[in-house]
């Protein structure tokens, strides 16, 4: 009985993983060169930054909120990093904390507005999205290339795993973030409070949980993750640019939701979001390997694959739910 119950809660996650495996198998059969461990690792290398924002976003969505500012915060971070390193000539050890602090403060500001003035997260973070990107433009509308040994190392450093396969330092950062987030979500009071607030904010308040503090914290963490992701993105791109990560917030939300987290809050897993990111990544990889789609068919194909995933996920979840009804009779 106990086990079944666990399965039920994790069903969307399991469904997502199954779908990922199916997709991967499909790609491997269809395209030569797809079934290589490096292609698989590339999913992590190319999406490390997305994993990090998705982790922050998971907490926001678990609490029933949303954060649209993440893409712009990434752009702003990249811009600050680039201009401070290249134009002001500062050392990375000063620049990195400044970058992280900027994102964290933006997140905290958003959280405070949402909590203390009772504003809707969608709108506050939408304004945050305009503001951060606007500030990035104010720094410069042009792209700034970064040419600094530390950044270059982070960009092209290869950490060999087995054989010829390698990952980048960013993957390690993402991995650490995920591990910490899983721990926080399941083994700390803060993490559980996030779930409670997402389940029912009013109840959480009446149960005497520190709702205000937790909510501000949630957006702060998301801001922090966005700026950390911005740094990883900057390593990835080796440049600062106001147009970086345009529309990334929607990808992030999609990844989190595909990973089985409910937008209404209160239910989902950090690990699910990682799988969600992987699914978006593999959709792209498949399309590139296909290599024959025109620009518009690319869009249509992405939409169709998204649809396929979401509908299959629903079908798996609904069918197992009804099955469970029958089992629990005994």
């Amino acid at each position, binding site marked *: *009985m*106990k086990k079944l*119950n*666990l399965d039920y*809660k994790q069903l969307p996650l399991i469904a997502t993983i199954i779908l990922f495996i199916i997709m991967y198998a499909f790609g491997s059969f269809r395209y030569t060169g797809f079934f290589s461990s490096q292609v698989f690792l590339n999913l992590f290398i190319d999406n490390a930054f997305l994993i990090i924002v998705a982790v922050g976003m998971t907490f926001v969505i678990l609490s029933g909120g949303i954060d649209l500012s993440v893409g712009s915060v990434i752009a702003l971070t990249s811009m600050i990093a680039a201009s401070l390193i290249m134009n002001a000539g500062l050392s990375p050890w000063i620049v990195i904390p400044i970058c992280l602090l900027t994102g964290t403060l933006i997140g905290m500001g958003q959280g405070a507005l949402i909590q203390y003035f009772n504003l809707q997260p969608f709108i506050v973070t939408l304004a945050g999205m305009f503001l951060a990107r606007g500030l990035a433009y104010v720094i410069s509308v042009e792209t700034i290339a970064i040419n600094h040994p530390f950044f270059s190392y982070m960009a092209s450093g290869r950490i060999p795993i087995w054989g010829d396969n390698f990952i980048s330092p960013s993957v390690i950062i993402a991995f650490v973030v995920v591990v910490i987030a899983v*721990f926080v979500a*399941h*083994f*700390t*009071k803060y993490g*559980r*409070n996030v*779930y*409670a607030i*997402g*389940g*029912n904010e*009013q*109840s*959480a*308040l*009446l*149960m*005497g*949980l*520190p709702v*205000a503090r937790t909510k501000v914290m949630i957006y702060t963490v998301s801001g922090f993750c966005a700026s950390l992701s911005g740094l990883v993105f900057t390593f990835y791109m080796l440049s600062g640019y106001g147009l970086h990560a345009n529309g990334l917030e929607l990808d992030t939300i999609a990844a989190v939701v595909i990973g089985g987290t409910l937008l209404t809050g*209160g*239910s989902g897993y950090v690990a699910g979001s990682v799988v969600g990111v992987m699914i978006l990544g593999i959709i792209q990889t498949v399309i590139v390997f296909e290599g024959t789609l025109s620009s518009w068919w690319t869009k249509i194909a992405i939409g169709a694959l998204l649809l396929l995933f979401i509908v299959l996920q629903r079908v798996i979840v609904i069918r197992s739910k009804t099955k469970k*009804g*029958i089992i*629990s*009779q005994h």
Partner: protein
Amino acid sequence: MQNQTPRLAMEGIVKEFPGVKALSDVNFQLFPGEVHALMGENGAGKSTLIKVLTGVYSIDGGTVTLEGNPIHVNSPLEAQELGISTVYQEVNLCTNLSVVENIFIGRQIMKKGRIDWKEMNRQADELLKRLNLNIDVTKLLSSYSVAMQQMIAIARALNVQAKVLILDEPTSSLDRDEVNQLFDVIRNLQKEGLAIVFVSHFLDQIYEISNRITVLRNGEWIGEYMTKDLPRLELVEKMIGKELNELTSISKGKGDEVQTEKRESFMEVENLSKTGNIQPFNLDIHEGEIVGLAGLLGSGRTELARLLFGADKPDTGEIKIKGVKKQLNSPKQAIANRIAFCSEDRKAEGIIPELTIRENMILAMQGTKGWFRFIPKKKQIEIADEYVELLNINPPNPEQLIKNLSGGNQQKVMLARWLITNPELLILDEPTRGIDIGAKTEIMKLMVSLSEKGMSILFVSSELDEVLRTCDKIAVLRDRKKVSEISNKDHKTQHDIMKEMAGGM
């Protein structure tokens, strides 16, 4: 007792909502080791007083002292930290979390910087056993009924070292056994010197457990009395502010029994079941008959009622309405067949919080009329005014948002919603939950008079005396199975039914 310093004292408390003065100049004293009942009609201000005390609402005037020290509570969190543990009227737990979490959240057991789930599960099990509950604590709260959730909320409140324990209508959907368990626990805590505030509309319970009573009426403080010095009748008079004499005189005109038999059957249910929820059962409901459903907590009464309303889809069996076989696959179809269902879970399945009293009332009726045959606003207002008056809803302003009403008044609006559809079969699942004694009597009377006019009623209630007083026939459920059907002709007693419920002792 009076000479001690009170553990908690509230003086001259004032609370205003836009347009409503919910509390004016209310006093309240609470001593260690006592159970202090807070009494008043629906909307008298009991819950508001509790919310003001625990920092849910800010205070507009007056002082609060805890053990002689003035305190300012700004949030439930602060109240908890001061040692005030509260169970609010509506179940305020998170249905997306497991039972353990709901009990422990905010004060989880930590080991080496992480939550110790194992230990928490163990302690939760233990705690619930004390309340005689044997449930899987790792399951989601949403898989349990409202009554069970209410018990869990109580368990949560008991799980702290508190100075003051506040219980706002904790027993509204519990049945006798649970109430006894709870009272045992309360008496123990009382002995340990805890000060307890208890709100209930059940006079029996008040007289059983409380030492003292404070009465509120319309947000005003009426007085404080020792329970043993205040006869019931007097208490009720103080609550409603007028004399009262016909309170006990409801019961179905039992002389009509013969007539009842002759009446046509409205609904015949055969072999209806839903796997995992309720085993196959048969049930006949005649026109103008009140059928009671009795059973222990979780015996499947709600499930049975939901099947009859099409809220859940049955797996087997069939339903005949007036001899014609019908498919009831959705509430919409059931309503089209003139069936109405007033859910026990008012918060989740009843009220539409953002809408007004009027809109909540006419919703089901409009539902039957569809999108385009809109009930004109004038007509809506007429209907709403009529029912506000009939059910004595307070505040008597149909344009008030329902979420701003007291629990009991919300319940009345729910009743009104279904009465307005003028159904042939009215299913009432714990309709008197949280309703004050005056209104309860009114509702009973209404039920009886409606049934005399030919309406069939399926009445689910945890209060056996209500069931006995009104029903023609009582179906008893045990372990999700209908075990017997008792005709309420020859003066059955609560004891007879309890025996069936518990399994023929």
